[in-house]
């Protein structure tokens, strides 16, 4: 099929062998690629509950049909496995150059099982896979490992740092300066003694209809460039530009999610980052948005922090020192660990210390806090770092404080304090990946960051969560960055928040939730195309030759979301785990008095999804052809 390399390899690290893993065109049509196709493969392979560090746990690295097509923001690729944080299925997305290199090397994806006898890395070149000794650079930081393993400019590498080697449960895998950061996929690499993968090749991307693709691509890029969010706000401030808005909306996680506002928010804001620290913008390959920041750390120009990092290492610790956050962000990348879970773990440790449950010396707002030393200790699992390396759920099992250990299913929440965004609270609770904003549906975009629907109402939030979950799942399966979806939000509404008609729409939207939800459950989205509004299906059609419509595209997302849930149930998920820490559902948020009113939203969510008590029904599974 066009748009694909049409080859997936199954690699066994125990025997250092590989073979082709057959994937039918029917699978490609139903699951597209990325996390959704990976979920299908995991579902076929993982037939019983399995520990993340069991050698049989597969790592599935998967590109998508648009990866390498030069569509906007299409360097994305995915890595999926059983997570050492949650014990459930996870996927982590990355914008580095490895995905495009893998496809040029002749593979859509890799399935990696087994465990090597000594540290190794995998070399892939034009359809041939080899195994090389990684002992000489076991222990190296991620930038150095990439340099050593991938010296050619054309090649792409995907490596772990010391955190992954030492099984830090939230270690990531890094390509260039971009990290597949969440849920500990790097630790699974480390458990297999796999330092990384490097790919290179001369394969060319083949289109089903190159002229049609090019024409629509041009329109899409123009739309992204002229939209107020993707064309102006994101390039100007990056994701860091959210900090100020989040603070006013009571959505800025502060002091281990005790509050949604931070008195020093300006010191860690996107405005301060731009005015005092920014050297230039930078983006992933093929990205017209360029939301990445370049800053200085130890006289080196390095990638700057995203909003999640600014919040979890800033307001969440009452740390107002921007340079300290920049340094910590850099070292988390170099040691290969997720800034979100690291920041949340430190914040939780501070509260445990404050409450006398664990004497660890960490204090909120401590001007002498040495985050870099903590990162190094965590990556090496030394001193209190050995506990921090386990994440908040396991720390709470040891020290107590479960009600304010801010995780769902074991994965720490992102930067958005959900008592200031009810829909986001629902999303965190039900997300297959655990406390993830993206897998949760990222409702906070409707609730103040972009759109301005009432953030404190629960009305309509379940239905819209489902819509955005499915849409983002499908976009990810197609192979472009989720940020492209912001251009789908009507520019007129973004640019004119005070117009009467816009405010009326925002007021009315929650009341349409019921209709959206019922339509999702019983009718589905029509098989039509509107390429200027939602270009993804048509772009996939031009790339692959498959006839995609909006309805068919969104169903890929629904299928993937449902399949992830089924896989999680197989891995031991109890739907009672679709919940939030008590701090967020029982403690009133300062300033708003709000708590996440979860139960009502969850009931509607299950109903609209066609899940009975959190379990997909047989008729839904048949309808989705799973």
């Amino acid at each position: 099929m066009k748009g694909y390399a049409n080859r997936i390899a199954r690699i066994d690290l125990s025997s250092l062998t590989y073979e082709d893993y057959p994937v039918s065109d029917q699978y490609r049509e139903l699951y597209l690629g990325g996390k959704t196709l990976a979920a299908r493969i995991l579902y076929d392979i993982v037939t019983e509950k399995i520990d993340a560090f069991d050698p049989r746990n597969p790592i599935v690295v998967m590109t998508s049909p648009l990866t390498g097509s030069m569509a906007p923001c299409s360097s994305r690729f995915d890595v999926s496995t059983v997570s050492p944080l949650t014990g459930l299925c996870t996927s982590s997305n990355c914008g580095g150059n490895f995905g495009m290199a893998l496809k040029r090397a002749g593979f859509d994806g890799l399935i990696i099982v087994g465990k090597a006898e000594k540290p190794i890395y995998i070399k892939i070149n034009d359809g041939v896979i080899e195994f090389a000794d990684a002992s000489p650079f076991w222990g190296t930081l991620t930038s150095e490992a990439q340099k050593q393993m991938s010296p050619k400019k054309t090649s792409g590498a995907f490596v772990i740092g010391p955190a992954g080697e030492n099984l830090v449960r939230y270690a990531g895998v890094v390509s260039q300066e971009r990290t597949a950061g969440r849920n500990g996929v790097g630790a699974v690499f480390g458990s297999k003694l796999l330092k990384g993968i490097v790919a290179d090749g001369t394969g060319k991307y083949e289109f089903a209809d190159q002229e049609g693709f090019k024409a629509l691509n041009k329109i899409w890029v123009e739309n992204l460039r002229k939209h107020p969010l993707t064309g102006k706000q994101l390039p100007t401030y990056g994701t860091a530009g959210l900090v100020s808005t989040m603070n006013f909306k009571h959505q800025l996680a502060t002091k281990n999610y005790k509050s949604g506002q931070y008195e020093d928010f300006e010191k860690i804001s996107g405005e301060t980052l731009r005015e005092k620290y920014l050297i230039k913008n930078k983006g992933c390959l093929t990205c017209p948005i360029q939301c990445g920041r370049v800053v200085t750390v130890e006289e080196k120009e390095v990638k700057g922090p995203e909003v999640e990092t600014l919040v979890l290492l800033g307001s969440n610790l009452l740390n107002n020192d921007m340079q300290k956050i920049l340094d910590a962000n850099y070292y988390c990348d170099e040691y290969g660990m997720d800034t979100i879970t690291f920041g949340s773990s430190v914040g939780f440790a501070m509260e445990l210390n404050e409450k006398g449950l664990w004497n660890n010396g960490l204090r909120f707002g401590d001007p002498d806090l040495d985050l870099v030393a903590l990162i190094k200790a965590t990556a090496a699992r030394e001193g209190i770092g050995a506990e921090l390396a386990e994440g908040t759920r396991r720390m709470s099992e040891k020290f107590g404080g479960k009600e304010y250990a801010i995780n769902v299913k074991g994965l720490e929440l992102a930067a958005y304090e959900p008592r200031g965004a009810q829909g986001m609270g629902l999303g965190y609770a039900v997300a297959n990946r655990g406390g993830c904003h993206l897998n949760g549906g990222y409702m906070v975009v409707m609730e103040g960051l972009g759109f301005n629907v009432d953030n404190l109402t629960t009305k309509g939030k379940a239905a819209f969560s489902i819509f955005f979950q499915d849409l983002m799942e499908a976009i990810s399966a197609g192979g472009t960055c989720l940020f492209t979806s912001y251009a789908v939000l009507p520019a007129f509404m973004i640019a004119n928040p005070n117009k009467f008609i816009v405010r009326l729409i925002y007021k009315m939207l929650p009341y349409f939730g019921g209709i959206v939800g019922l339509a999702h459950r019983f009718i589905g989205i029509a098989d039509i195309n509107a390429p200027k509004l939602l270009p993804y299906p048509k772009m996939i059609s031009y790339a692959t030759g498959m006839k995609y419509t909006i309805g068919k595209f969104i169903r890929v997302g629904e299928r993937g979301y449902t399949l992830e849930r089924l896989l999680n149930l197989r891995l031991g998920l109890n739907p009672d785990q679709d919940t939030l820490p008590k701090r967020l559902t029982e403690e009133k948020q300062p300033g708003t008095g709000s708590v996440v009113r979860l139960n009502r939203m969850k009931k509607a969510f299950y109903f609209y999804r066609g899940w009975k008590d959190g379990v997909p029904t047989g008729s839904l599974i048949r309808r989705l052809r799973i």
Partner: protein
Amino acid sequence: MITVRLYGLFRLESEKPVYQFEPVQDVAAVLSLLAKESRLGLKDWKKAVIYVNGTAIDKLSMFRTQLKDGDVLSVLSPASGG
């Protein structure tokens, strides 16, 4: 005094993070003053997301929200990403 603190694109395009004005009647009057003192026009300022002492004006009386000495207006542009 009325203090106006700017965030996001308004801060960038007006080239000044903070303005201070003698007390005026309402938010609309402040926006008119901003239009006079910055390179942005009144039409631009009316597109801002505005808070008075931390409360969004769509929860108050929009541009007719009354002001008093010491009030702080926060003016933001719509943001996204994450």
